[in-house]
Protein backbone atom coordinates (compact mmCIF):
# COMPACT_ATOMS: atom_id res chain seq x y z
CA UNK A 1 0.00 0.00 0.00
CA UNK A 2 1.21 3.50 -0.75
CA UNK A 3 1.52 5.41 2.48
CA UNK A 4 2.80 8.66 1.01
CA UNK A 5 1.70 10.00 -2.34
CA UNK A 6 2.74 13.21 -4.05
CA UNK A 7 0.81 14.14 -7.14
CA UNK A 8 2.38 16.83 -9.31
CA UNK A 9 3.40 18.86 -6.27
CA UNK A 10 4.99 22.30 -6.53
CA UNK A 11 6.13 24.67 -3.83
CA UNK A 12 7.66 28.12 -4.20
CA UNK A 13 9.33 30.28 -1.61
CA UNK A 14 9.04 34.02 -1.44
CA UNK A 15 12.29 35.57 -2.58
CA UNK A 16 13.32 39.13 -1.86
CA UNK A 17 15.27 40.51 -4.77
CA UNK A 18 18.01 43.08 -4.44
CA UNK A 19 15.79 45.80 -5.89
CA UNK A 20 13.21 45.21 -3.16
CA UNK A 21 10.68 43.40 -5.30
CA UNK A 22 9.24 40.13 -4.14
CA UNK A 23 9.57 37.22 -6.48
CA UNK A 24 9.48 33.53 -5.98
CA UNK A 25 12.15 30.91 -5.69
CA UNK A 26 11.45 27.35 -6.59
CA UNK A 27 11.43 24.78 -3.84
CA UNK A 28 10.10 21.81 -5.73
CA UNK A 29 8.20 21.61 -9.00
CA UNK A 30 5.95 18.99 -10.48
CA UNK A 31 7.01 16.23 -8.13
CA UNK A 32 5.10 13.00 -8.41
CA UNK A 33 6.17 10.09 -6.30
CA UNK A 34 4.93 7.56 -3.85
CA UNK A 35 6.36 5.58 -0.98
CA UNK A 36 5.19 2.06 -0.23
CA UNK A 37 4.41 1.10 3.32
CA UNK A 38 7.36 -0.69 4.94
CA UNK A 39 9.88 0.50 2.34
CA UNK A 40 13.28 2.05 2.99
CA UNK A 41 13.53 4.87 0.51
CA UNK A 42 16.46 7.24 0.07
CA UNK A 43 16.10 10.72 -1.33
CA UNK A 44 19.37 12.10 -2.65
CA UNK A 45 20.48 15.26 -4.35
CA UNK A 46 22.75 18.20 -4.02
CA UNK A 47 22.28 21.08 -1.59
CA UNK A 48 19.39 23.24 -2.68
CA UNK A 49 17.81 20.58 -4.86
CA UNK A 50 14.56 20.68 -2.91
CA UNK A 51 15.06 17.67 -0.64
CA UNK A 52 14.26 19.49 2.57
CA UNK A 53 11.33 21.33 1.02
CA UNK A 54 9.97 17.96 0.01
CA UNK A 55 10.43 16.65 3.55
CA UNK A 56 8.50 19.57 5.00
CA UNK A 57 5.69 18.94 2.52
CA UNK A 58 5.28 15.42 3.88
CA UNK A 59 3.90 16.38 7.28
CA UNK A 60 2.19 19.61 6.49
CA UNK A 61 4.92 21.96 7.68
CA UNK A 62 4.58 23.31 4.15
CA UNK A 63 1.39 23.06 2.12
CA UNK A 64 1.88 22.61 -1.64
CA UNK A 65 1.08 25.63 -3.81
CA UNK A 66 -0.23 23.23 -6.40
CA UNK A 67 -0.71 19.49 -6.56
CA UNK A 68 -1.60 17.23 -3.69
CA UNK A 69 0.24 15.41 -0.91
CA UNK A 70 -1.57 12.57 0.79
CA UNK A 71 -0.37 10.62 3.81
CA UNK A 72 -2.22 7.43 4.58
CA UNK A 73 -5.03 8.76 2.39
CA UNK A 74 -5.23 12.14 4.17
CA UNK A 75 -4.68 15.37 2.27
CA UNK A 76 -2.10 17.62 3.99
CA UNK A 77 -3.84 20.73 2.65
CA UNK A 78 -6.86 20.04 4.87
CA UNK A 79 -6.21 21.71 8.25
CA UNK A 80 -8.36 19.17 10.09
CA UNK A 81 -6.00 16.40 9.06
CA UNK A 82 -2.81 18.02 10.19
CA UNK A 83 -2.40 16.30 13.57
CA UNK A 84 -3.45 12.95 12.24
CA UNK A 85 -0.80 13.37 9.53
CA UNK A 86 1.90 14.42 11.98
CA UNK A 87 1.03 11.43 14.13
CA UNK A 88 1.75 9.26 11.10
CA UNK A 89 4.92 10.96 9.93
CA UNK A 90 7.70 11.35 12.47
CA UNK A 91 10.41 13.74 11.41
CA UNK A 92 14.00 14.18 12.51
CA UNK A 93 15.98 17.18 11.35
CA UNK A 94 19.60 17.99 10.71
CA UNK A 95 20.81 19.83 13.78
CA UNK A 96 20.34 17.70 16.88
CA UNK A 97 20.69 20.70 19.22
CA UNK A 98 17.84 22.58 17.62
CA UNK A 99 15.19 19.94 18.10
CA UNK A 100 15.59 19.29 21.80
CA UNK A 101 12.78 20.84 23.77
CA UNK A 102 13.80 19.78 27.26
CA UNK A 103 17.00 19.54 29.22
CA UNK A 104 16.39 15.98 30.33
CA UNK A 105 16.31 13.10 27.82
CA UNK A 106 13.09 11.49 29.04
CA UNK A 107 11.21 14.77 29.04
CA UNK A 108 12.33 15.50 25.53
CA UNK A 109 11.12 12.12 24.30
CA UNK A 110 7.86 12.63 26.19
CA UNK A 111 7.15 15.91 24.43
CA UNK A 112 5.26 14.32 21.51
CA UNK A 113 2.95 12.06 23.52
CA UNK A 114 2.35 14.90 26.00
CA UNK A 115 1.16 17.04 23.11
CA UNK A 116 -1.19 14.30 22.01
CA UNK A 117 -2.73 14.12 25.48
CA UNK A 118 -1.62 10.56 26.14
CA UNK A 119 -2.32 9.53 29.76
CA UNK A 120 0.69 9.82 32.09
CA UNK A 121 1.25 6.07 32.64
CA UNK A 122 1.27 5.38 28.92
CA UNK A 123 3.70 8.22 28.28
CA UNK A 124 6.22 6.57 30.58
CA UNK A 125 5.73 3.28 28.73
CA UNK A 126 6.12 4.96 25.35
CA UNK A 127 9.25 6.83 26.41
CA UNK A 128 10.87 3.63 27.66
CA UNK A 129 9.87 1.77 24.54
CA UNK A 130 11.18 4.51 22.23
CA UNK A 131 14.49 4.79 24.08
CA UNK A 132 14.81 1.02 24.00
CA UNK A 133 14.27 1.02 20.23
CA UNK A 134 17.16 3.42 19.67
CA UNK A 135 19.38 1.76 22.28
CA UNK A 136 19.51 4.74 24.61
CA UNK A 137 17.65 3.34 27.63
CA UNK A 138 20.48 4.00 30.03
CA UNK A 139 20.41 7.73 29.31
CA UNK A 140 16.83 8.38 30.47
CA UNK A 141 17.84 10.99 33.01
CA UNK A 142 20.85 12.47 31.21
CA UNK A 143 20.96 15.95 29.84
CA UNK A 144 21.06 15.85 26.03
CA UNK A 145 23.84 18.39 25.61
CA UNK A 146 26.33 16.05 27.25
CA UNK A 147 25.70 13.33 24.65
CA UNK A 148 27.52 12.82 21.36
CA UNK A 149 25.97 13.94 18.07
CA UNK A 150 24.93 10.41 17.15
CA UNK A 151 23.37 9.86 20.56
CA UNK A 152 21.50 13.16 20.35
CA UNK A 153 20.06 12.18 16.97
CA UNK A 154 19.02 8.83 18.40
CA UNK A 155 17.20 10.72 21.15
CA UNK A 156 15.54 12.84 18.46
CA UNK A 157 14.48 9.64 16.68
CA UNK A 158 13.12 8.32 19.97
CA UNK A 159 11.18 11.58 20.30
CA UNK A 160 9.59 10.92 16.91
CA UNK A 161 8.96 7.24 17.72
CA UNK A 162 7.12 8.09 20.94
CA UNK A 163 4.33 9.45 18.74
CA UNK A 164 4.18 5.97 17.14
CA UNK A 165 4.38 7.08 13.51
CA UNK A 166 4.06 4.84 10.49
CA UNK A 167 6.71 6.74 8.57
CA UNK A 168 10.01 8.11 9.81
CA UNK A 169 11.53 10.92 7.77
CA UNK A 170 15.21 11.60 8.42
CA UNK A 171 15.84 15.01 6.90
CA UNK A 172 19.63 15.09 6.54
CA UNK A 173 19.78 13.76 10.07
CA UNK A 174 23.26 12.39 9.50
CA UNK A 175 24.73 15.47 7.81
CA UNK A 176 26.23 17.00 10.94
CA UNK A 177 27.50 13.77 12.46
CA UNK A 178 30.89 12.12 12.45
CA UNK A 179 31.20 8.72 10.72
CA UNK A 180 30.54 6.85 13.94
CA UNK A 181 27.42 8.89 14.70
CA UNK A 182 26.20 8.37 11.14
CA UNK A 183 26.63 4.65 11.50
CA UNK A 184 24.67 4.65 14.78
CA UNK A 185 21.76 6.55 13.27
CA UNK A 186 21.66 4.41 10.12
CA UNK A 187 21.72 1.21 12.12
CA UNK A 188 18.76 2.42 14.14
CA UNK A 189 16.91 3.40 10.95
CA UNK A 190 17.48 -0.03 9.40
CA UNK A 191 16.47 -1.81 12.56
CA UNK A 192 13.23 0.18 12.71
CA UNK A 193 12.60 -0.59 9.06
CA UNK A 194 13.10 -4.30 9.72
CA UNK A 195 10.34 -4.00 12.32
CA UNK A 196 7.95 -2.57 9.77
CA UNK A 197 8.60 1.18 9.88
CA UNK A 198 8.57 3.01 6.58
CA UNK A 199 11.77 5.07 6.41
CA UNK A 200 12.51 7.98 4.13
CA UNK A 201 16.18 8.86 4.36
CA UNK A 202 17.18 12.22 2.96
CA UNK A 203 20.91 12.49 2.48
CA UNK A 204 23.76 13.46 0.26
CA UNK A 205 26.07 10.67 1.40
CA UNK A 206 25.85 8.05 -1.30
CA UNK A 207 27.26 5.35 0.98
CA UNK A 208 24.08 5.59 3.04
CA UNK A 209 21.96 4.79 0.01
CA UNK A 210 23.42 1.34 -0.61
CA UNK A 211 21.08 -0.70 1.55
CA UNK A 212 17.89 1.08 0.54
CA UNK A 213 15.02 -0.48 -1.36
CA UNK A 214 14.66 2.48 -3.65
CA UNK A 215 16.53 5.68 -4.42
CA UNK A 216 14.91 8.89 -5.58
CA UNK A 217 17.26 11.44 -7.14
CA UNK A 218 16.38 15.11 -7.10
CA UNK A 219 17.93 17.98 -8.94
CA UNK A 220 16.84 21.59 -9.25
CA UNK A 221 13.49 20.94 -7.58
CA UNK A 222 12.57 18.04 -9.83
CA UNK A 223 12.68 14.31 -9.38
CA UNK A 224 15.08 13.22 -12.09
CA UNK A 225 15.32 9.52 -11.44
CA UNK A 226 14.14 6.72 -9.22
CA UNK A 227 15.22 3.13 -8.99
CA UNK A 228 17.15 0.57 -7.03
CA UNK A 229 20.57 1.66 -5.74
CA UNK A 230 22.39 -0.39 -8.37
CA UNK A 231 20.26 1.05 -11.19
CA UNK A 232 21.14 4.54 -10.01
CA UNK A 233 24.83 3.79 -9.51
CA UNK A 234 25.13 2.28 -12.96
CA UNK A 235 23.67 5.35 -14.60
CA UNK A 236 26.90 7.33 -14.86
CA UNK A 237 25.36 9.99 -17.10
CA UNK A 238 22.67 10.70 -14.51
CA UNK A 239 25.10 10.90 -11.62
CA UNK A 240 27.30 13.28 -13.59
CA UNK A 241 24.37 15.48 -14.44
CA UNK A 242 23.22 15.88 -10.84
CA UNK A 243 26.74 16.11 -9.47
CA UNK A 244 26.62 13.01 -7.29
CA UNK A 245 29.19 10.26 -7.05
CA UNK A 246 28.68 6.56 -6.60
CA UNK A 247 30.48 5.11 -3.57
CA UNK A 248 34.20 4.67 -4.26
CA UNK A 249 34.21 0.88 -4.36
CA UNK A 250 31.38 0.82 -6.87
CA UNK A 251 33.11 3.39 -9.00
CA UNK A 252 36.33 1.42 -8.94
CA UNK A 253 34.67 -1.86 -9.79
CA UNK A 254 32.83 -0.16 -12.64
CA UNK A 255 36.12 1.16 -14.00
CA UNK A 256 37.74 -2.25 -13.69
CA UNK A 257 34.86 -3.85 -15.55
CA UNK A 258 34.98 -1.30 -18.34
CA UNK A 259 38.75 -1.88 -18.58
CA UNK A 260 37.94 -5.49 -19.32
CA UNK A 261 38.82 -6.95 -15.93
CA UNK A 262 36.21 -9.41 -14.81
CA UNK A 263 35.24 -8.47 -11.24
CA UNK A 264 31.82 -8.30 -9.68
CA UNK A 265 30.40 -4.81 -9.29
CA UNK A 266 30.10 -4.18 -5.57
CA UNK A 267 30.03 -1.62 -2.86
CA UNK A 268 32.09 -3.53 -0.33
CA UNK A 269 35.67 -2.34 -0.68
CA UNK A 270 37.06 -5.37 1.16
CA UNK A 271 35.27 -7.85 -1.07
CA UNK A 272 36.36 -5.93 -4.14
CA UNK A 273 39.95 -6.03 -2.91
CA UNK A 274 39.64 -9.80 -2.47
CA UNK A 275 38.31 -10.11 -6.00
CA UNK A 276 41.17 -8.08 -7.43
CA UNK A 277 43.76 -10.10 -5.51
CA UNK A 278 42.24 -13.30 -6.83
CA UNK A 279 42.50 -11.95 -10.39
CA UNK A 280 46.12 -10.90 -9.87
CA UNK A 281 47.04 -14.39 -8.59
CA UNK A 282 45.58 -16.05 -11.62
Amino acid sequence: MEIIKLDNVSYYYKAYNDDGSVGSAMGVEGVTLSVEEGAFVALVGHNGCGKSTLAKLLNGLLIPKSGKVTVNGLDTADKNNIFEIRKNVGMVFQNPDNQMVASVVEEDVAFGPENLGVPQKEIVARVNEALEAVGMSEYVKSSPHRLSGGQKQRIAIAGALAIRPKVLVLDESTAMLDPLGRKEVLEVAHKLNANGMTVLLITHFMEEVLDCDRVIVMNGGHVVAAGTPSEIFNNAALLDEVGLKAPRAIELSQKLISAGIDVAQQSDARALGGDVCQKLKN
Partner: protein
Amino acid sequence: MFRDVTFGQYYPASSFVHSMDARVKLLLTLLFLVGIFFVQSFVVYGFVAVFLLTVIFVSRVPLRSVLRSIKGIIVLLVLTAVINVFFTKGADAAESPLWAWSPWNGFTIEIYVNGLKTAGKIFLRLVLLVMGSSVLTLTTTPVDLTHAVESLLKPLKLIKFPVHEFALIMSLTLSFIPSLIDETDRIIRAQKARGADFDTGGLVKRAKAFVPILIPLLVGGFRRAEELANAMNSRCYEGATKRTCMRVMKLGWRDAVASLLVVAFFAGVFVLYGMRGQWNFITWLYY
Protein backbone atom coordinates in the same frame (compact mmCIF):
# COMPACT_ATOMS: atom_id res chain seq x y z
CA MET B 1 34.82 27.78 29.66
CA PHE B 2 31.24 28.62 30.61
CA ARG B 3 30.03 25.05 30.56
CA ASP B 4 29.10 24.58 34.13
CA VAL B 5 27.60 27.96 34.78
CA THR B 6 24.53 26.67 33.04
CA PHE B 7 23.63 24.08 35.53
CA GLY B 8 22.98 26.86 37.88
CA GLN B 9 24.07 25.91 41.26
CA TYR B 10 22.41 22.57 41.60
CA TYR B 11 24.39 20.38 43.96
CA PRO B 12 23.53 16.75 43.27
CA ALA B 13 23.08 14.70 46.40
CA SER B 14 20.39 12.56 47.94
CA SER B 15 18.98 14.08 51.05
CA PHE B 16 15.77 14.87 52.80
CA VAL B 17 15.68 18.31 51.21
CA HIS B 18 16.62 17.09 47.72
CA SER B 19 13.79 14.60 47.62
CA MET B 20 11.15 17.05 48.70
CA ASP B 21 8.55 18.27 46.22
CA ALA B 22 9.89 21.32 44.37
CA ARG B 23 6.57 23.14 44.84
CA VAL B 24 6.75 22.76 48.60
CA LYS B 25 10.36 23.87 48.63
CA LEU B 26 9.49 26.92 46.56
CA LEU B 27 6.59 27.88 48.82
CA LEU B 28 8.57 27.33 52.01
CA THR B 29 11.43 29.40 50.62
CA LEU B 30 8.95 32.19 49.89
CA LEU B 31 7.66 31.92 53.45
CA PHE B 32 11.25 32.10 54.69
CA LEU B 33 11.97 35.18 52.59
CA VAL B 34 8.87 36.95 53.83
CA GLY B 35 9.38 35.75 57.40
CA ILE B 36 12.89 37.24 57.56
CA PHE B 37 11.38 40.71 57.27
CA PHE B 38 9.44 40.19 60.46
CA VAL B 39 12.52 39.45 62.49
CA GLN B 40 13.41 42.40 64.67
CA SER B 41 16.16 41.37 67.01
CA PHE B 42 19.56 39.79 67.02
CA VAL B 43 18.35 36.99 69.25
CA VAL B 44 15.68 35.97 66.76
CA TYR B 45 18.17 36.35 63.92
CA GLY B 46 20.24 33.87 65.84
CA PHE B 47 17.32 31.46 65.95
CA VAL B 48 16.78 31.87 62.21
CA ALA B 49 20.48 31.32 61.51
CA VAL B 50 20.50 28.14 63.58
CA PHE B 51 17.35 27.01 61.80
CA LEU B 52 18.88 27.69 58.38
CA LEU B 53 22.13 25.95 59.30
CA THR B 54 20.13 22.92 60.38
CA VAL B 55 18.34 22.89 57.02
CA ILE B 56 21.68 23.17 55.22
CA PHE B 57 23.07 20.33 57.33
CA VAL B 58 20.06 18.16 56.52
CA SER B 59 20.38 18.97 52.81
CA ARG B 60 23.97 17.62 52.77
CA VAL B 61 25.07 20.59 50.72
CA PRO B 62 28.49 21.74 51.94
CA LEU B 63 28.24 25.02 53.82
CA ARG B 64 30.96 26.35 51.54
CA SER B 65 28.66 26.10 48.48
CA VAL B 66 25.94 27.99 50.31
CA LEU B 67 28.34 30.68 51.47
CA ARG B 68 29.62 31.06 47.92
CA SER B 69 26.26 32.57 47.01
CA ILE B 70 27.05 35.52 49.27
CA LYS B 71 30.11 36.34 47.21
CA GLY B 72 27.90 37.74 44.49
CA ILE B 73 26.32 40.34 46.77
CA ILE B 74 29.34 41.26 48.85
CA VAL B 75 29.52 44.77 47.40
CA LEU B 76 25.86 45.32 48.08
CA LEU B 77 26.28 44.03 51.62
CA VAL B 78 29.19 46.28 52.49
CA LEU B 79 27.55 49.29 50.85
CA THR B 80 24.24 48.94 52.69
CA ALA B 81 26.00 48.28 55.98
CA VAL B 82 28.23 51.36 55.61
CA ILE B 83 25.36 53.60 54.58
CA ASN B 84 23.31 52.44 57.55
CA VAL B 85 26.13 52.99 59.99
CA PHE B 86 26.59 56.59 58.90
CA PHE B 87 23.05 57.66 58.16
CA THR B 88 21.02 56.16 60.97
CA LYS B 89 20.25 58.60 63.76
CA GLY B 90 19.76 57.66 67.38
CA ALA B 91 16.72 55.68 68.47
CA ASP B 92 15.47 58.78 70.32
CA ALA B 93 16.68 62.32 70.92
CA ALA B 94 18.27 61.25 74.20
CA GLU B 95 20.78 58.95 72.52
CA SER B 96 24.13 60.64 72.15
CA PRO B 97 26.43 59.68 69.29
CA LEU B 98 29.06 57.07 69.92
CA TRP B 99 31.49 58.95 67.76
CA ALA B 100 31.28 62.25 65.93
CA TRP B 101 33.52 64.17 63.61
CA SER B 102 32.96 67.57 62.13
CA PRO B 103 35.38 68.26 59.27
CA TRP B 104 33.83 71.65 58.62
CA ASN B 105 31.07 73.82 60.00
CA GLY B 106 27.53 72.54 59.61
CA PHE B 107 28.58 69.05 58.55
CA THR B 108 29.00 66.32 61.11
CA ILE B 109 29.48 62.63 60.73
CA GLU B 110 27.90 60.82 63.62
CA ILE B 111 27.74 57.17 64.47
CA TYR B 112 25.11 55.96 66.91
CA VAL B 113 24.79 52.59 68.57
CA ASN B 114 21.39 52.42 66.94
CA GLY B 115 23.04 52.80 63.51
CA LEU B 116 25.44 49.96 64.21
CA LYS B 117 22.53 47.81 65.30
CA THR B 118 20.48 48.63 62.19
CA ALA B 119 23.43 47.98 59.93
CA GLY B 120 24.09 44.65 61.63
CA LYS B 121 20.45 43.60 61.29
CA ILE B 122 20.27 44.54 57.62
CA PHE B 123 23.52 42.72 56.99
CA LEU B 124 22.17 39.60 58.67
CA ARG B 125 18.86 39.93 56.87
CA LEU B 126 20.51 40.06 53.44
CA VAL B 127 22.89 37.21 54.21
CA LEU B 128 20.06 35.02 55.43
CA LEU B 129 17.87 35.93 52.46
CA VAL B 130 20.54 34.94 49.96
CA MET B 131 21.57 31.81 51.83
CA GLY B 132 17.98 30.74 52.22
CA SER B 133 17.15 31.10 48.56
CA SER B 134 20.35 29.38 47.50
CA VAL B 135 19.35 26.33 49.52
CA LEU B 136 16.41 26.10 47.12
CA THR B 137 18.51 26.38 43.96
CA LEU B 138 21.21 24.11 45.34
CA THR B 139 18.81 21.29 46.08
CA THR B 140 16.39 21.62 43.14
CA THR B 141 17.20 21.14 39.46
CA PRO B 142 16.15 23.95 37.12
CA VAL B 143 13.79 21.51 35.43
CA ASP B 144 12.01 20.74 38.68
CA LEU B 145 11.82 24.43 39.47
CA THR B 146 10.17 25.08 36.12
CA HIS B 147 7.62 22.37 36.76
CA ALA B 148 7.00 23.78 40.22
CA VAL B 149 6.43 27.26 38.84
CA GLU B 150 4.05 25.90 36.21
CA SER B 151 2.10 23.96 38.76
CA LEU B 152 1.93 26.82 41.27
CA LEU B 153 0.88 29.37 38.66
CA LYS B 154 -2.00 27.19 37.46
CA PRO B 155 -4.66 29.23 39.26
CA LEU B 156 -3.67 32.18 37.06
CA LYS B 157 -5.27 30.35 34.15
CA LEU B 158 -8.54 31.72 35.49
CA ILE B 159 -7.46 35.21 34.49
CA LYS B 160 -6.26 33.88 31.11
CA PHE B 161 -2.60 34.02 31.99
CA PRO B 162 -0.79 31.63 29.60
CA VAL B 163 0.74 29.46 32.32
CA HIS B 164 1.75 26.58 30.09
CA GLU B 165 3.38 28.81 27.49
CA PHE B 166 5.20 30.68 30.23
CA ALA B 167 6.59 27.43 31.65
CA LEU B 168 7.50 26.19 28.19
CA ILE B 169 9.45 29.37 27.49
CA MET B 170 11.28 28.87 30.77
CA SER B 171 12.20 25.28 30.04
CA LEU B 172 13.18 25.99 26.41
CA THR B 173 15.42 28.78 27.64
CA LEU B 174 17.03 26.38 30.07
CA SER B 175 17.60 23.72 27.47
CA PHE B 176 19.05 26.18 24.95
CA ILE B 177 21.51 27.86 27.27
CA PRO B 178 24.22 25.20 26.81
CA SER B 179 24.09 25.27 23.02
CA LEU B 180 24.00 29.06 22.94
CA ILE B 181 27.04 29.13 25.20
CA ASP B 182 28.84 26.70 22.93
CA GLU B 183 27.95 28.88 19.98
CA THR B 184 29.18 32.03 21.73
CA ASP B 185 32.44 30.27 22.43
CA ARG B 186 32.75 29.24 18.80
CA ILE B 187 31.98 32.72 17.50
CA ILE B 188 34.49 34.27 19.87
CA ARG B 189 37.16 31.89 18.67
CA ALA B 190 36.25 32.47 15.03
CA GLN B 191 36.42 36.24 15.46
CA LYS B 192 39.70 35.98 17.35
CA ALA B 193 41.09 33.89 14.51
CA ARG B 194 40.23 36.78 12.21
CA GLY B 195 42.12 39.19 14.38
CA ALA B 196 39.35 40.53 16.62
CA ASP B 197 40.71 42.01 19.82
CA PHE B 198 38.61 41.71 22.96
CA ASP B 199 41.18 42.32 25.61
CA THR B 200 42.72 45.71 25.02
CA GLY B 201 41.49 49.27 24.75
CA GLY B 202 39.07 51.35 26.76
CA LEU B 203 35.59 50.43 27.84
CA VAL B 204 33.96 51.76 24.66
CA LYS B 205 36.37 49.94 22.40
CA ARG B 206 35.86 46.72 24.29
CA ALA B 207 32.11 47.08 24.22
CA LYS B 208 32.25 47.69 20.48
CA ALA B 209 34.37 44.58 20.04
CA PHE B 210 31.41 42.53 21.20
CA VAL B 211 29.16 43.61 18.36
CA PRO B 212 30.70 41.05 15.97
CA ILE B 213 29.86 38.39 18.55
CA LEU B 214 26.34 39.49 19.33
CA ILE B 215 25.13 39.84 15.75
CA PRO B 216 26.02 36.30 14.59
CA LEU B 217 24.64 35.00 17.88
CA LEU B 218 21.36 36.80 17.32
CA VAL B 219 21.07 35.65 13.71
CA GLY B 220 21.91 32.11 14.79
CA GLY B 221 19.29 32.38 17.51
CA PHE B 222 16.58 33.15 14.98
CA ARG B 223 17.66 30.27 12.77
CA ARG B 224 17.57 27.95 15.76
CA ALA B 225 14.16 29.24 16.76
CA GLU B 226 12.76 28.41 13.34
CA GLU B 227 14.22 24.92 13.33
CA LEU B 228 12.92 24.37 16.83
CA ALA B 229 9.46 25.54 15.79
CA ASN B 230 9.50 23.04 12.92
CA ALA B 231 10.62 20.25 15.23
CA MET B 232 7.91 21.12 17.75
CA ASN B 233 5.23 21.28 15.08
CA SER B 234 6.37 17.93 13.71
CA ARG B 235 5.82 16.50 17.16
CA CYS B 236 2.20 17.63 17.19
CA TYR B 237 2.59 20.67 19.40
CA GLU B 238 -0.56 22.78 19.56
CA GLY B 239 -0.29 24.73 22.77
CA ALA B 240 -1.78 23.83 26.09
CA THR B 241 -5.02 22.28 24.83
CA LYS B 242 -5.46 18.67 25.92
CA ARG B 243 -1.76 18.42 26.80
CA THR B 244 -0.77 15.92 29.47
CA CYS B 245 2.40 15.74 31.47
CA MET B 246 4.71 12.83 32.04
CA ARG B 247 6.07 14.09 35.31
CA VAL B 248 3.86 13.58 38.30
CA MET B 249 4.60 15.63 41.35
CA LYS B 250 3.56 13.86 44.49
CA LEU B 251 3.58 15.20 47.97
CA GLY B 252 5.24 12.86 50.43
CA TRP B 253 5.73 12.62 54.16
CA ARG B 254 8.89 14.71 53.86
CA ASP B 255 6.89 17.60 52.52
CA ALA B 256 4.43 17.36 55.37
CA VAL B 257 7.15 17.23 58.02
CA ALA B 258 9.17 20.04 56.49
CA SER B 259 6.12 22.25 56.00
CA LEU B 260 5.04 21.69 59.58
CA LEU B 261 8.45 22.62 60.96
CA VAL B 262 8.98 25.68 58.79
CA VAL B 263 5.44 26.98 59.24
CA ALA B 264 5.62 26.46 63.01
CA PHE B 265 8.94 28.25 63.20
CA PHE B 266 7.72 31.27 61.29
CA ALA B 267 4.40 31.28 63.10
CA GLY B 268 6.54 31.81 66.17
CA VAL B 269 8.40 34.63 64.45
CA PHE B 270 5.15 36.29 63.41
CA VAL B 271 3.67 35.96 66.90
CA LEU B 272 6.76 37.55 68.42
CA TYR B 273 6.48 40.36 65.89
CA GLY B 274 2.81 40.92 66.67
CA MET B 275 3.43 41.08 70.43
CA ARG B 276 6.54 43.23 70.38
CA GLY B 277 6.65 45.52 73.38
CA GLN B 278 3.63 43.92 75.04
CA TRP B 279 5.05 41.40 77.40
CA ASN B 280 7.99 42.20 79.49
CA PHE B 281 9.36 38.71 79.64
CA ILE B 282 10.06 38.66 75.95
CA THR B 283 11.60 42.07 75.71
CA TRP B 284 15.01 40.48 76.03
CA LEU B 285 14.27 39.02 72.66
CA TYR B 286 14.30 42.54 71.34
CA TYR B 287 17.71 43.46 72.38
